[in-house]
C-alpha cells in the first residue's frame, strides 16, 4: 500500500484544471426502478450519512474529482506510462537508480525543512544526516550512502507540517496529473515545490535543472507500482480515496 500511496503525488507538474471533460450528469432516479434485494434501508444503520461510512472520507467535490480521476487515468495510459516504458528501455537500471537517489536527496531536504518546522529533533537529525552524507560522499545524491549506513529515512512534507499544527485534511481533492490529495496537502505542495526549486536552481546549472524538471515526474511514475483499474476493486475511486486519507492521517500522527 505504501507504494500505491507514496507515488500518487507527483509534486512537480503545475496545476492545470483545463482538461477535465464534462460528461453526462449521473443523476440516478432510483425511485423509478424496482428495489434491489438488499437496499441501503435494509442494510445500513438508520441515519447513516456518508460521513458514517465504513470508508468515509469528506469529499464534497466528488463529481469534479471523479472527472479529474478519469482524466488522469487517460493521461496515464496515453502519455505517462508510454514515456516511462521508453525511459526504462533507454536508461539502464543503474542509471535509473542514480536518478531516483538524486531526487530522493531533494525529498530528504524537504523532510529536513519540515521536521524543523514541526520541531522534531530526531527526524531533523536523520534527514540532515542523510542530506549531508548523500550530497557529499554520495556524489550530489546519485549514490544513496546514507541508507547503506542504516540512517533511517523519515518523510515529512508541508502538508504533514500543517497537519501537525492542527490543520485538518479538508475536502478530498484529485489533482490533475498528480492524483489523490486533499485541500491541505494540495496547498502544502506549493511551499514544498518552492523550496525545492529554489535550492535546485541555486546548486544546479540551468541545463541540469531543466533536465531534472523533466525527469522528476518520469522517475516518480517509474517508481510507483500503482496502475489504474488493475487492483481488482470495482470501487477503486473510493478505495484509493480512503487509503490515501488514512495514510496521510497516520503520516501526520507518527
Amino acid at each position: 500500500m505504501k507504494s500505491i500511496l507514496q507515488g500518487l503525488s507527483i509534486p512537480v507538474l503545475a496545476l492545470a484544471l483545463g482538461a477535465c471533460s464534462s460528461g453526462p450528469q449521473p443523476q440516478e432516479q432510483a425511485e423509478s426502478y424496482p428495489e434491489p434485494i438488499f437496499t441501503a434501508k435494509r442494510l445500513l444503520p438508520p441515519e447513516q450519512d456518508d460521513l458514517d461510512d465504513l470508508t468515509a472520507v469528506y469529499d464534497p467535490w466528488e463529481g469534479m474529482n471523479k472527472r479529474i480521476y478519469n482524466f488522469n487515468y487517460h493521461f496515464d495510459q496515453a502519455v505517462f506510462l508510454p514515456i516511462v516504458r521508453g525511459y526504462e528501455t533507454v536508461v539502464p537500471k543503474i542509471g535509473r537508480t542514480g536518478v531516483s537517489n538524486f531526487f530522493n536527496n531533494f525529498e530528504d531536504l524537504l523532510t529536513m525543512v519540515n521536521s524543523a518546522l514541526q520541531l522534531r529533533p530526531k527526524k531533523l537529525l536523520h534527514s540532515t544526516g542523510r542530506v549531508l552524507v548523500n550530497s557529499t560522499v554520495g556524489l550530489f545524491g546519485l549514490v544513496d550512502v546514507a541508507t547503506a549506513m542504516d540512517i533511517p529515512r523519515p518523510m515529512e512534507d508541508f502538508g504533514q507540517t500543517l497537519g501537525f499544527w492542527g490543520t485538518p485534511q479538508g475536502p478530498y481533492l484529485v489533482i490533475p496529473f498528480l492524483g489523490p490529495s486533499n485541500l491541505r496537502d494540495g496547498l502544502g505542495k506549493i511551499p514544498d515545490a518552492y523550496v525545492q526549486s529554489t535550492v535546485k536552481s541555486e546548486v544546479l546549472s540551468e541545463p541540469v535543472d531543466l533536465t531534472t524538471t523533466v525527469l522528476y515526474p518520469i522517475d516518480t511514475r517509474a517508481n510507483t507500482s500503482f496502475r489504474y483499474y488493475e487492483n481488482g476493486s470495482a470501487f477503486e475511486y473510493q478505495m484509493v480515496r480512503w487509503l490515501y486519507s488514512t495514510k496521510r492521517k497516520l503520516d501526520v500522527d507518527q
Partner: protein
Amino acid sequence: MTITKTTQQLIAGLCALLFASLTFAAVNTVADYDYPIKDRFAATVVGTPEGYQAKLPESIPFKSRSIVIFPERVTPDVFFYGHELLYSVALQDHEAPLIFLIAGTGASHNGSKNTNMAKAFYQAGYHVVSVSSPTYNNFVIAASKTGVVGHAERDAEDIYRVFEMIWAELKNEITATSFNVTGYSLGGFNAAFVSKLDEERKSFNFKRVLLINPPVSLYNSISLLDRMTQDIPGGINNFDKFVDKLMRAYTSTYEESADAGGEDFLYKTYKALKLKDEELGALIGTSFRVSSASLVFTSDVMADYGYIKPKGLTLNRYSNLRVYNEVSLRLGFTDYYHEFFYPFYKAEEPSMTRDQFIASMSLKSIEEYLHNAKKITMMGNVDDVILEPGEIEFFPRVFGDRATIYPYGGHCGNMNYRDNVAHMVAAFTEGEIQ
C-alpha cells in the same frame, strides 16, 4: 440476516475453532518440515519470512497482455476499463512445456502469489501463462459468460475458453511440448474442474495438474470466511476502528523498518503486534469481505440482477457508488450465495434444490474423476483455515499418494516456503525426460 441465523453461525464457528485442533492428527503429514509459523491464522496472514523463502530469480520477463474474449459484449460504462481481459506470460525462447496458472479468490494474474509461481516455473524451463481468478473484477467483466461467478462448471468453461483463445494467439510465437495447469485456493479448485472439462474438449490434453490448497466445498469455505468477519471487535460497523488499530500498529513497525511491504515485514509486525487468533481471523475475513464486496457488485452490474443495484438502472463511470460499496461490505458471501447465485442458476434448472446445488459446488461432485485421474496431484495443509474440521481427510482418501499434506501453513501461507516451491515444481518435472 436474522438473529437466529447469526447465532447459529457463531456457534458453528466456535465449534469449528474448538474442534479444529482435534482433527489434525487424523491425516498423515509431511515429516521434517521447518516452516516457521505454527499458528494457522498467522501463517495465512503473514506468509513466509524471507529467510525461509525459495531462491527465485529477482526478475523474469513476466509481461502483461490483454485479449478480447467477447467482442460483441457491450461493457457497462461503469466498468469501461474492463473490456479486455488482462493476463501475463513469461515465455522461453525455445520449445518448452507450458503451464497455465490460475489465481485464487479475487486475485489477479500478476498478484504476488502468481508472480512467484511464474518465477519458479519459468526458472524450471516452462512457458508460463498466468490468468486472474474468475472472481477477479476484470475477469468477471471481460471473460465470464454469465457474469455470475463462483460456479464450479461455468467458471471452468470460462477459464477453458480463455486458455484456448490465449493459446490461439501464442501458438504463433512459441512451441509447447505439453500443457499443464495449476492454481492455488479457489484457483486449485478451478484447476480440477478445468482438467475434467479438458477430458471432453481435448484442446490441451493436460499432462499434469496440481491443486494447491483447494477448498473441498465452496459453500463450507465461504461460510467459514463469513464467520471470521464476525470476529471484528464490535462487528462490521466498527470495521473502521478495527482497521485503524491495525494500521497504527503496522505503521509504528514500519517507522523502524526501511522496507515496508514484504513478508518479512509482515512477520515482524505480527511478532510485535501479538494479535489474537480472532483478530487474525477477522483480518482474513475482512480481506475476503473486501474482495467479495467488489465481486458481488460487479456480478450484479454484469447480470443486471437487482441484488444491490436496482435492476435496469444504468451506471456510468462518474456515478456515485457509495451506497453499493457500503451495502456490499455488509453482506456476506453466503448472502450472495442464497439470494443471487443460487436463484440465478436455479432459473436455468428449476428442479435443482438448494442442497443439490451446494453439493455440486464441491470437489466431492467429481470425486470419482479425481480418484482416477493419475495426472492430478494436490498439496494442502492440515491446518488450512478455509477447510471445515475433517475436510482435509477428503484429499488422502481420494488422491491417495498423490496428496501431500503439510503440518503447517494455514491457507496458502507456506506457498513461498522453499520446500513447497520445490514440491510445486517437482509435481510437474519429476519423471520428466530431460
